[in-house]
């Protein structure tokens, strides 16, 4: 409980009565997470071991669902590919890493510009808000807004054909891996900018001056002072982006023209066919993968100190 008191430093003396009082205040909030988060998660784990037929779920304890997911994964297919589950996980992981890399570089550059190059606080706030406003608008709208640009007769193809660079429209601009990654970057760079900017604003400016006085070049200051001190923001942003992309099915669905597989999409399809135990087993595996990634990242940071 030590970190609670550091976060609060309230004027109120601690007593059992106070604790009870505090819990009454936190009770509705807690109840929501018990009812709609903890219990559902527990049920997913439970049902992932259940059996099912076309009509109903059958309480049991079986590993059938897990075996079904990895059926045939011990050997490569005749074309030398991995089994469906494994290649879907690898493809989802590939998207995650790609989007993570791009949003990290882009988000860092934008946050760096805002934090260290924009001098007036008013301008800083205005530009920061400019970056965050799209977050409050619909993701699907932001996805379909690429259609008039990237489509077969879209602006990009029209322009390229207009100047004579290409004869035939480029087909891979829309409903492809490219458009999926583009949409992810478009939607989620904000999740990098905000925490990294927050970390950068806490850096004592005299440290930069000290580095410069000690003879560090701009790049050396960036790499040896600013990047380490922005670590927390980088890690929080990375967790957001990686977990969102790992579980995504909407963006991959819409921007991939419903043709590209992802783990989230498998779960969604299995749920819509009411194959809950299979979907649950997939969810447990996805969750384990995501938790491993987060565990690797969070050992380095205490989120609560950053608010």
């Amino acid at each position, binding site marked *: 409980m030590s970190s609670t008191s550091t976060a609060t430093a309230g004027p109120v003396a601690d007593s059992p009565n106070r604790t009870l009082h505090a819990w009454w205040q936190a009770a509705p909030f807690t109840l929501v997470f018990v009812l709609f988060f903890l219990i559902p998660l527990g049920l997913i784990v439970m049902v992932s071991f259940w059996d099912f037929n076309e009509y109903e779920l059958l309480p049991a304890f079986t590993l059938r669902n897990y075996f079904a997911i990895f059926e045939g994964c011990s050997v490569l297919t005749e074309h030398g590919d991995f089994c469906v589950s494994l290649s879907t996980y690898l493809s989802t992981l590939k998207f995650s890493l790609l989007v993570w890399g791009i949003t990290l570089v882009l988000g860092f550059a934008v946050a760096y510009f805002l934090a260290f190059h924009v001098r007036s606080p008013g301008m800083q706030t205005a530009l920061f808000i400019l970056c965050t406003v799209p977050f409050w608008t619909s993701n699907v709208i932001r996805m379909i*807004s690429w259609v008039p640009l990237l489509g077969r007769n879209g602006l990009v193809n029209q322009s390229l054909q207009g100047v004579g660079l290409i004869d035939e429209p480029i087909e891979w601009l829309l409903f492809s891996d490219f458009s999926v990654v583009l949409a992810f970057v478009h939607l989620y760079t904000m999740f990098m900018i905000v925490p990294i900017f927050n970390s950068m604003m806490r850096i004592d400016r005299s440290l930069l001056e000290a580095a410069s006085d000690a003879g560090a070049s701009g790049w050396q200051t960036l790499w040896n002072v600013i990047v380490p001190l922005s670590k927390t923001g980088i890690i929080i942003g990375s967790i957001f982006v990686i977990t969102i992309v790992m579980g995504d099915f909407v963006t991959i669905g819409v921007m991939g023209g419903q043709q590209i597989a992802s783990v989230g999409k498998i779960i969604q399809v299995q749920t819509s066919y009411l194959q809950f135990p299979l979907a649950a087993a997939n*969810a447990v595996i996805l969750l384990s993968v995501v938790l491993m990634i987060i565990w690797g990242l969070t050992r380095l940071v205490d989120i609560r100190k950053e608010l």
Partner: protein
Amino acid sequence: MAHTTESRAPGFWPLATVFALFVLFMYGPMFVIFVLSFQGPEGGLTFPLRGLSLHWFRQLAEGLGTVDIGAAFLRSLMLGSVVMLFTVLLSVLAGLAFRKNLSGGNALFYVTVASLIMPSIIVSLGIGLQFRLLDGGLKWLLEAVGATTTLEEYGTALGLFTSALGAHLTWTLPFGLLIMFAVFNRFNPAYEEAARDLGATPWQTFRHVVLPLIGPSVVGIGMFGFTLSWDEIARTSQAIGDVNTLPLELQGLTSTVTTPAIYALGTVTTVVSFAVIGITVGLAMLLGRHKKGHTG
């Protein structure tokens, strides 16, 4: 460091260019669909514009195929408002609780953060599953007590203000609590102490001292609550039952509708989001000015 204070630091212009391109990247496509939603009746999904008209907005009002856009719009509006209300109330209460000696508060905090970063499809699946099991249990119970008429009328517990509301709150409440933390971390308790020293009751202290000070942030929480709910898809998808919210309908329409009507829908939804942001900023500024008038 003399030249950094007088002229632009090295790297300013390249970075400024990156920033400008980023802003264009963020807003450009959105702007394009605003323009295209006013496409003339003969116009298509891409440029060129064939005249300007409100044709596609009229089409939208009449409904797209089998989808009743108006009903979905109202459902989303109602759900968003309820989510906003709950988000504000529960987050503020929990934020206050965390300032006291909340034993087990760390666990609650970690659960909240876990809910924020949990892949949405998992939350959605879990809630959908939970309500279907609940349905099964209730039906079994009704059968056991012999309430056959109730059993026949019983559909499902899944719904807008049951499972979907819960799903939305798992997404909006973490933002609400984090904002409350950020607010109280910068909050000067001296004002409260002064109020108590002057004999104010806890409620009076909250109502007349704390609430005016945190007012603008509370309005901000309300905005997060509404806009996040208004655009939510992933957590709602498996947890809503027979009816659909507006973004879910929109997602479905992306693969079936091939006219600018879908851009018109996009424009309408975005206008609502911007209106909410505008109202929030206005209200927060009003509250801020009010506060200044009292304290300074």
